[in-house]
């Protein structure tokens, strides 16, 4: 089967810094593909390159076989790419359910005049978007917060709200950038569960996550970045046993963590 995502020799510079340098990889349908690496390794930058937020200086990105290098984010969204943000990008002045309804944007087809006059087609569209959004809020456990302003929700809830919103787009490929960062153990557990359910539902997932135990447990493939470069890509076992990874990234602490995850 064709790769969902194909990244070829991609790179971007900020001033003199090569934030991502000559990285290539493929994500196959249905996989959970994790990207790990120390802070500043270029993981978020990689997501920004894939989702069109940054235009790569070098290299190419293919979605389902189609070259999409340099396409703006809103075009990529229509090709089935969705993501969350490490630093929350919530619509704080809108309610929780409205946040998710915005995620339905590419599925909303009503004319401007119809919207000004609130024609029946628009009312039907609003109902449909709201219903879908409610299902997703229910999925992430926020159904009871639907009509509260997003700005009044606690941090952990906002992380889940972003997941619901990103799913509303109906993605083929979902990029999750540290979905559990800053969450406590219980919240992290909940988000782990969500990720696995999303993957089970057939959505291909690219995950950036610091919790090594989680990454080792649920990833089909793992890409290790270091200073913007690809250190290794492989299965959890391959990555865990790679001497370069152990030396450069996991270190003594990581080794014990990884070993523990084995059992």
């Amino acid at each position, binding site marked *: 089967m064709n790769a969902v995502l194909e990244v070829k020799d991609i790179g971007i510079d900020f001033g003199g810094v090569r934030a991502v340098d000559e990285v290539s990889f493929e994500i196959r349908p249905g996989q959970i593909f994790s990207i790990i690496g120390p802070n500043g390794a270029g993981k978020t930058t990689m997501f920004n390159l894939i*989702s*069109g*937020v940054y235009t790569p200086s070098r290299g190419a990105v293919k979605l389902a076989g189609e070259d999409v290098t340099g396409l*703006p*984010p*809103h075009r*990529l*969204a*229509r090709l089935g790419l*969705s*993501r969350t*943000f490490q630093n929350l*990008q*919530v*619509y*704080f*002045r*809108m309610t929780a359910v*409205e*946040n998710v*309804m*915005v*995620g*339905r*944007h*590419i599925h*909303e087809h*009503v004319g*401007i005049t119809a*919207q*000004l*006059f*609130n024609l029946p087609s*628009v009312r039907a*569209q*609003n109902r449909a*978007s709201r219903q879908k959004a409610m299902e997703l809020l229910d999925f992430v456990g926020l159904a009871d917060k639907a009509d509260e302003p997003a700005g009044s929700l606690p941090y952990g809830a906002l992380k889940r709200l972003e997941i619901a*919103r990103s799913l509303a*787009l109906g993605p083929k490929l979902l990029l999750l950038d540290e979905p559990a960062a800053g969450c406590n153990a219980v919240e992290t557990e909940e988000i782990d569960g969500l990720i696995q359910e999303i993957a089970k539902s057939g959505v291909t997932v690219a995950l950036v996550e610091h919790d090594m135990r989680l990454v080792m447990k649920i990833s089909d493939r793992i890409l290790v970045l270091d200073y913007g470069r690809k250190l290794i890509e492989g299965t959890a076992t391959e990555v865990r046993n790679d001497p370069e990874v152990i030396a450069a990234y996991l270190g003594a602490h990581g080794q014990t963590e990884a070993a523990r995850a084995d059992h």
Partner: protein
Amino acid sequence: MAFLKGKYGVLLAIAIIVLILPVAFPSNYYFRIATLVWISALAVIGLNLLMGYAGQVSLGHAGFFGMGAYAVAVGPTHLGIPPVASALLGAASAGLLAFVVGRPILKLRGHYLAVATLGMGILVAMVLNNEAQWTGGPDGMPVSRLVLFGFKVKGPVMWYWITAGFLFVGAWLALNLVDSPLGRALRALHDSETAARVGGIDVARHKLIVFVISAVYAAVAGSLLAFFDGLVTPNTAGFLHSIQLVTMVVLGGMGSILGSLVGAAVLVTLPQALTVFHDYEHLMLGLMMMLFMIFLRRGIVPTLRDRIAGRVQ
């Protein structure tokens, strides 16, 4: 006052205000002031869609207002176009200008966008000032009375009801928009352009759409004022008027349709009420505006609504 939050609550509030006020009005003078409020409020609702909902500032909206006003002056006088058709042409021209200049300038943000829209407004005012053979130059020009179906539209009372009708419809359309896919997209890009983009929203296109819509609101309001006053002057398109419109949006409440009406009402009526202070009139006006902003920072309607709902600021 929680009912003021829903769409129909806001429309009901406007309807009640419009229907009840005349009972208390002792003279035509009050109808005149109220008419000016309705006209300003219409322009302010449009500007609020742009500023309060989509988060894009315009310091040149009086330019669009002026285009609407001059259209109903110039069209019938110089081109033989019927008044109502002239008004429609004015609205279309303002929309077209917004579409053309909006493309490049809406790429700008914050202060840069403010300066660019300011420039656009000044340009329109300059053209109206300089093309004296068409516009009467700095003195302005008269507008012939509106005649509909052989019936002369005149007098503050009649205009009170006409402009109130426009205000009501303008508020209804705006409220519809806010709760539609387009309105949600606008509010979203206000809070996070990146998230909106990644969510499939063509941000540039959406900013352009709301800019055009708000320009049309301003132009229609301008046409109404010209018909009502029977006179247009370049001041309607001037910088000071643009600032007044922005002040009305902020004073009444960004992202509040009812706030647009309240902001317009305050800024139109306060100078009238403050004339009792004679020489200190402007001083008092400036002082009151500062106090409003200090104590009702998010605008009169949103702040009061939250206070009354019992939420502590």
